[in-house]
Structures are given as C-alpha cells and as structure tokens.
C-alpha cells in the first residue's frame, strides 16, 4: 500500500508537467492576442514593450521563463489584471471556492445518497419516479438557467436570502445549494443503481434471513457497499466543485476561482490559464489518489496495486 502511494505521488509531477506542456501548446496555438483592444487607441510600441515585460513576445521566451518560476510557486503576472500576479489571484479566489465547494459537496453527498437509497428501496414505485425526475431535471437544464432562476426567485423576488458580498454564512447557503444540484443528481443516480444491485445480492438476503431489520440491512450493510461507485465519482466531482463553478460564481457574484477558468481562456490570459489549469490538475490528481486509497479502505477486496 505504502509503495503504491509512493509511486503515485512520484508520478504526480510528471503528469503535471505533461499537462502543463499540453496546455501551453493549446494556449499558443489558439488564435487571438491577449493584448489587443478595439475601442481604445493602441500603440504597437506599447504592446511590444508589454509583451517583453511579460516574456510573452514568443513561445520560446515564455517557455524559458515561466516553468522555472512556477516551480518556485510564482505563476507570473496576469495579463488581464495588471497589478496582481496569478499567484495573488489564486490565493484570493481559491479559499472562497473551496469553502463554497465544501458546503456544496456535503449537501450533495448527504442528500444524494439518501435520495438514491430511498429510490432504490422503492424501485419502480412513486418515490423512485419522483425523486429521479427531480434529480434529472437538475441535470436536464442548463446550469446558467438554474443558477439565475434561483437567484432571481429567492434573492430578487422573495428576499429569502440576502444579496451581499462574500462574507456571511447566509449569503453562502443559496449558492452552495445551487452548486450542489448537479453532483447531487449524479450521486443519487449512482447510489440508486448500485443499491439495487446490492439489494439483490446474496449477502443482503442472508442478512435478512438472519432476522436483521430491513432498515438495518439497507442503511448499514447495503449502503456501505453501495457507496463504492459514489466514491469513485467523488474524486473528479470534488475537484470540479472545490475549484469553483463559473455560473454559480457569476450569478451570485462570488469572488472565487471558477470565473477565471472561463474568463482567462476568453481573455487569452496565458499565465492565468496555466495557473488555473495547474490548480485544477493538482486538485484532480490528488482527489483521484485519495479515492483510490479510500477504495482500498472501504472495500479491502480491491487490490489497487494489482496490475490489470
């Protein structure tokens, strides 16, 4: 086990380096210049000197300069926000996104697993259809519609939640809820499927035959085994949720990291793109590693170290 973790941890920098290089190539082949503007005067001399300052005059100088800096934890200057560095931007945004994402994931896991289990138990019944329809509507509507509608309804019209800047817990509840909907729907669905599997398995029948109550069997024995696929979903889902969502952060004006994922691409802010991609990849790889390890703990039968 220790050896497995060690190997995976040692692989991380290598995979990160490849991701960095790939992103770098994509960023430089994409058309569009981060420095151009149309509605104001542009002086080519100014742009040249700015590029030089940012080491962005050619991909060679960019590649020669930034990776070295990045290892030292300095992602360089942002091309959109003049006064702050990419590191500052990440430092300001990441804690916000992580807090909100944590709340969302807690809601999603608890609610999702409960809904999924109940749906599995009443398979084909009313609750099954109802809960699944609700969950599916959650993933059948564009996220920008759901986010905006929640905001317009609960903040704008009903005034149930305050409209305020980041800071208070009450201002965090609605965005947290909005953010949790998609993972919740997937978790509910996964739980339902694997719970149905579980309920028809021999050991559940044995447990029932032993005289254990239905509730005990379902919630204790069944669930423990049924959450396995949920755990494997949690890896990428947590990485995506904790690094922030573009829509939710835009609609609720949350100063997190999520907006930068899209805006940096649209602005061709090359340093910021690389910075956010690195953060996202680190989260993703770490969570996937945690999931693999967690798998081994929840289900000792799985030998993660085995070569398939």
């Amino acid at each position, binding site marked *: 086990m220790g050896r497995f973790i060690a190997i995976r941890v040692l692989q991380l920098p290598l995979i990160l380096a490849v991701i960095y290089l790939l992103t770098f190539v994509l960023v430089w082949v994409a058309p569009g210049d981060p420095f151009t503007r149309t509605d104001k005067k542009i002086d080519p001399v100014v742009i040249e000197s700015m590029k030089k300052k940012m080491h962005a005059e050619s991909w060679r100088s960019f590649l020669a300069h930034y990776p070295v800096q990045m290892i030292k934890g300095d992602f360089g200057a942002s091309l959109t926000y003049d006064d702050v560095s990419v590191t500052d931007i990440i430092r300001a945004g990441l804690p916000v996104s992580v807090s909100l994402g944590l709340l969302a994931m807690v809601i999603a896991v608890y609610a999702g697993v409960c809904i999924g289990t109940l749906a599995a138990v009443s398979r084909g019944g009313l609750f099954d259809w109802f809960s699944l329809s609700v969950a599916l509507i959650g993933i059948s509507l564009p996220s920008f519609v759901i986010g905006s509608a929640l905001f317009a309804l609960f903040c704008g019209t009903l005034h149930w939640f305050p409209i305020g800047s980041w800071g208070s817990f009450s201002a965090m509840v609605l965005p947290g809820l909005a953010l949790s909907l998609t993972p919740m729907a997937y978790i509910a669905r996964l739980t339902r*499927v694997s719970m149905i599997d579980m309920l028809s398995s021999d050991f559940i029948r044995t447990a029932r035959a032993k005289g254990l109550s239905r509730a005990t069997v379902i919630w204790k024995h069944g669930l423990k085994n049924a959450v396995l696929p949920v755990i494997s979903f949690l890896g990428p889902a947590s990485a*995506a949720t904790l690094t922030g969502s573009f829509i939710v952060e835009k609609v609720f004006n949350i100063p997190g990291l999520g907006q930068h*994922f899209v805006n940096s691409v649209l602005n061709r802010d090359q340093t910021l793109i690389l910075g956010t991609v690195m953060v996202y990849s680190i989260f993703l790889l770490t969570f996937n590693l945690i999931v693999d390890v967690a798998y081994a703990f929840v289900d000792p039968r799985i030998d993660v170290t085995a070569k398939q």
Partner: protein
Amino acid sequence: MTVASPILAPHAVAAAPAPDTLARRLRASGRIVVGGGVLLIMLIACLATLPFTLDRSGTGALKGALYFDRQTPALQRRVPAFRVNGQVTPALWFGADTLGRSLLGRSLLGGSISLLIGFAAAAISVFLGVSVGLVAGYRGGWLDSLLMRSVDILYGLPYILLVVLFKMALEPMFGRAGLSPPVANLVVLFLAIGLVSWLTMARVIRGQVLSLRAQPFVEACKAAGLGEWRIFTRHLLPNLIGPITVYATLIIPIAILEESFLSFLGIGIQPPMPTWGSLASDGLIPALNRIHQYPHMLIVPCALLSVTLLSLNFMGDGLRDVFDPKREAAKV
C-alpha cells in the same frame, strides 16, 4: 468548471443478455417506452417541420411565418407577443421573441440543431471512446498504459479550455476548406464537444474488454486461430453493445447542455441560427429581469430542453437496467 461529466462506475453495466429476452425487456421497461416515445415525438416534430422553419418565402397558410429568422417589427418587444392583429396564428403558439420572430419556428429548428449536435457529438465520442477502449483493453501492455495515461492527462485539462480552444483552432480551418460559416460553425461545435467527451467511454469500454478478455470464449477464439479483427468485430463488439448504448444515450444530453453553455458564453451556435440552449440563454435576461416581461422566452426552450433530456436520461437508465440481467429480481 461547471459541467461535471458523469463518471459512472464501470461495473454497473454488464454484458448483454440473449437477444430474445432483450426485446422482451425493452418493451417491458416503462422508462424506455416513455423516454423513447417522448424523444421520438420531439424528433419527428422538429424534423418534419424543417421545410417550414428553413423556408423564407413559404407557401400555403403559413407563408413563411415559421421561418426561423422572419422578423416582424410589429411584434418587436410587444408583451405578451402572442397575437398579431388580435389573432393567434400557429406561428405564435409559443409567442414571439424580442425581435418579433416566431418562437415556435425557432424552437423547432433549434430542436433539430440541438439534437443533431447531441447525436453527432455522441457518435464521435462513441467512435473514439470505443476504439481507444478496445485497443487499450485488448492489446494491454505499454499501449494500454500509454493510452490510459493520455486519457488521465486529458481528464486533467479543464473541459471548457479544450472546447474553446478546439473551436477556435478548427473554425478558421473549416472556413478555409470552403464550408459556409453556419455549416462550419455547426461541424466545429459537435467536433469540439465530441472530441472532449469520449474519455469516460474509453475507460468504461477498456474495463469491459479487460473482463471479457479473461473469459474462456475469447481464449477459445484465439486458440481456434481467429484473426484479431474477427475477434474484435464478431465476438467482443456484440458483447459491448449494452454499455455502448447506455453511455451513448447519456452522452447526448451532456453534449446538448455543453452547447447551451457555449451559447451562453457567446461561442456556441452563430445567430441567427437557434438551438434550445441559445434560445434559453437569449431568453435568460428578458425573462428574469426585475420586470419579468418575457418569461415565455425562457420557459419554452427550457421546457423543451428538459423534457427531451429527461427522456434521454430515462432511456439511458432503462437501458442500463435492461442490459444488466442481475437486477431482474432486485426487490427486498
């Protein structure tokens, strides 16, 4: 990142049951009948009306009223724009948008385009995912490691970055190749979406192939001296139809939603061409501004979108149940 792909557990899908029971189960599954029925109705409605929605001049009673880009200044920003000269015509069943265009016409054409994007993107991702998964799972060894690490790395790149960059890199290329901009735009859209959504499929198929490969019948085929291609097509693929169908059904809704998100960002379908997603994103502010004057501009495309995606998801779930024989007796 906003759109999490559904990472579904590989072991949730097992090999296909025998064909005779399959047909029976398909009919028996309420989800498939309902989902498939609704989807079929949508498809027919959208495709059958294409002659009207794409015809500017138009003949007969409609006279081009359903043409997706026919702007009637009299209806521009009239609230509620359901009547013209006091009469409700078929073109105004869903009302008019802020430019005075028939929302029905736009929704019908939008549906065709959305579904086209969904199916095309799913087809691309099925093709890529199945090829990579098959090769990786069957060949194993260094090829498997290489392909799967590549998949891991692509997973690490934020989805939106890939879509946007693919789109920007490919669009000028198709433009130069002589495609007209709307067509190039459409092709690039489903290519970009398809090219980034095959990863899950590849993983699932690889897992399936790994478990199939270990089964005696594949050994037997090899021992009998059958060619690789033959083993692939005649013995492995039929056993993979189940998971492929299930995942394809689930990729379609995701692709349609992806397009809507791109439209929201202003890099999706080109106006005046509509998709359900772009209609919803166009209707967002008119419907949700403080005065709430044009709710129909948001409700109509969202209703169509969610009904269709719901039915696709139901079909996917139903298919999964059907292809998994173990579940038959699952009742406590």
